[in-house]
């Protein structure tokens, strides 16, 4: 079809189940609504379709994808055999040598493991489970093998921002070559816990200095990618490189989304691979065409010289914070509602966070 871009990347969220309870998770609050998961045959069908559509990268995530480890291996095998780059995004608690062998045999190219802090007391408190030591073992196993690329991921928020330098030191001592330091993005559970997670201005300022210094010092031995905190900048992130432009996400129940947070936009209806082909959903479904390109934009985006740089920012954020997904992302200084970002930064932090739990998801989704 003329005018429809080629999708480059497919995110398969194969389950929302997880043995961790991280409050910064961007999964939707109503996790229980996704309990009926696609079976393996459906996932493999989706991979085949994605390959036909020209997708180059397949990311396996969740929840914790390795709770369906056999299915993950089969998906990796299929995707690799179709020439896709395969990436496993995991918290690593189940990555033993036997499973790594199977992934390697299936052609897995890249593993990303997240940690919640540089040591067990902090990390386990954030994760809501005693898992840090097991995760460290998994990281060491992957690095010792050396047959797949590895990225260490650390999500930053108020409770662990001050430990940033310790995480960089830990990564150095492990021999990590790629480190992703990502400020929490406020969607799903993270949005619910925003006031608890929001870093202070001082933390953000210190982090910029620490990261820049480390990037300089470690050039050539470790690549550090720093994901900026959305609420502190002048311009929004170029979210998904444009809506329906390069990325698609399939949720555990088969619903197809332009991004992993899009389910939060309740004014759109999303289609499911159980009902319709992936290509058709990508090319002409209401959800994917709604904000594709720049034609949907209003002012100040419409006449902005940055509209092809950041694509108006994030639709989910515009909807979550302003109630209209077609508005300029309020993260942009040009948004007439940029004040909501400042107000969120200044909001006092509550003493408690809401742990991500499926059992709690019904009351959490109701605002309880």
């Amino acid at each position: 079809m003329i005018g429809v871009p080629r999708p480059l990347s497919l995110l398969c969220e194969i389950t929302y189940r997880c043995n961790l309870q991280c409050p910064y998770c961007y999964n939707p609050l109503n996790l229980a609504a996704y309990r009926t998961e696609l079976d393996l045959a459906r996932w493999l069908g989706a991979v085949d379709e994605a390959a036909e559509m020209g997708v180059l990268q397949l990311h396996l995530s969740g929840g914790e994808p390795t709770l369906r480890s056999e299915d993950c291996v089969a998906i990796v095998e299929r995707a690799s055999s179709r020439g896709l780059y395969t990436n496993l995004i995991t918290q690593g608690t189940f990555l033993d040598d036997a499973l790594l062998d199977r992934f390697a045999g299936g052609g897995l190219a890249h593993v990303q493991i997240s940690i919640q802090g540089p040591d067990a007391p902090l990390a386990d408190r954030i994760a809501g489970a005693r898992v840090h030591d097991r995760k460290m073992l998994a990281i060491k196993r992957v690095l010792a093998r050396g047959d797949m690329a590895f990225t260490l991921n650390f999500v930053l928020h108020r409770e662990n921002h001050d430990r940033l330098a310790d995480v960089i030191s830990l990564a150095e001592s492990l021999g990590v070559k790629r480190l992703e330091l990502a400020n929490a993005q406020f969607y799903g559970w993270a949005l619910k816990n925003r006031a608890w997670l929001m870093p202070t201005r001082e933390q953000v300022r210190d982090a910029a200095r620490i990261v820049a210094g480390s990037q300089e010092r470690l050039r050539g031995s470790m690549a550090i990618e720093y994901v900026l905190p959305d609420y502190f900048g002048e311009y929004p992130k170029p979210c998904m490189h444009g809506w329906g432009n390069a990325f698609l996400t399939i949720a555990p129940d088969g619903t197809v989304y332009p991004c992993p947070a899009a389910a939060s936009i309740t004014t759109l209806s999303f289609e499911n691979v159980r009902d319709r082909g992936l290509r058709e959903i990508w090319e002409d479904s209401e959800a994917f065409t709604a904000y594709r390109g720049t034609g949907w934009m209003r002012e100040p985006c419409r006449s902005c010289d940055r509209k092809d740089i950041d694509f108006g920012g994030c639709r989910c954020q515009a909807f979550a914070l302003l109630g209209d997904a077609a508005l300029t992302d309020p993260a942009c200084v040009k948004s007439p509602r940029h004040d909501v970002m400042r107000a969120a930064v200044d909001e006092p932090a509550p003493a408690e966070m809401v742990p991500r739990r499926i059992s709690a998801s019904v009351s959490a989704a109701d605002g309880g």
Partner: protein
Amino acid sequence: MKASSRPSLAPGVRIRKEGDGVAFLLIPEGVVELGDTALAIVELVNGERSVDEIVLVLADRYEGPDEGLGADVRAFVAAFTERGYFA
């Protein structure tokens, strides 16, 4: 880049050839498009051939030694090694 070093694709780096002659290097951070010459070099990198041997294969393929070819290949291999695509 030493002429005797034997580069290989780094772990987690894959070559992807499209039907229409377009080729990509798939890397953890994303996708790098490869031109014809780049693809020719990348396909010869296997951990066994030295940089000199890669130059010889290319010189043979493109008929005749070219003064600049060796330097070009060494610069390319050095750049891809620095970016982490070659080990």
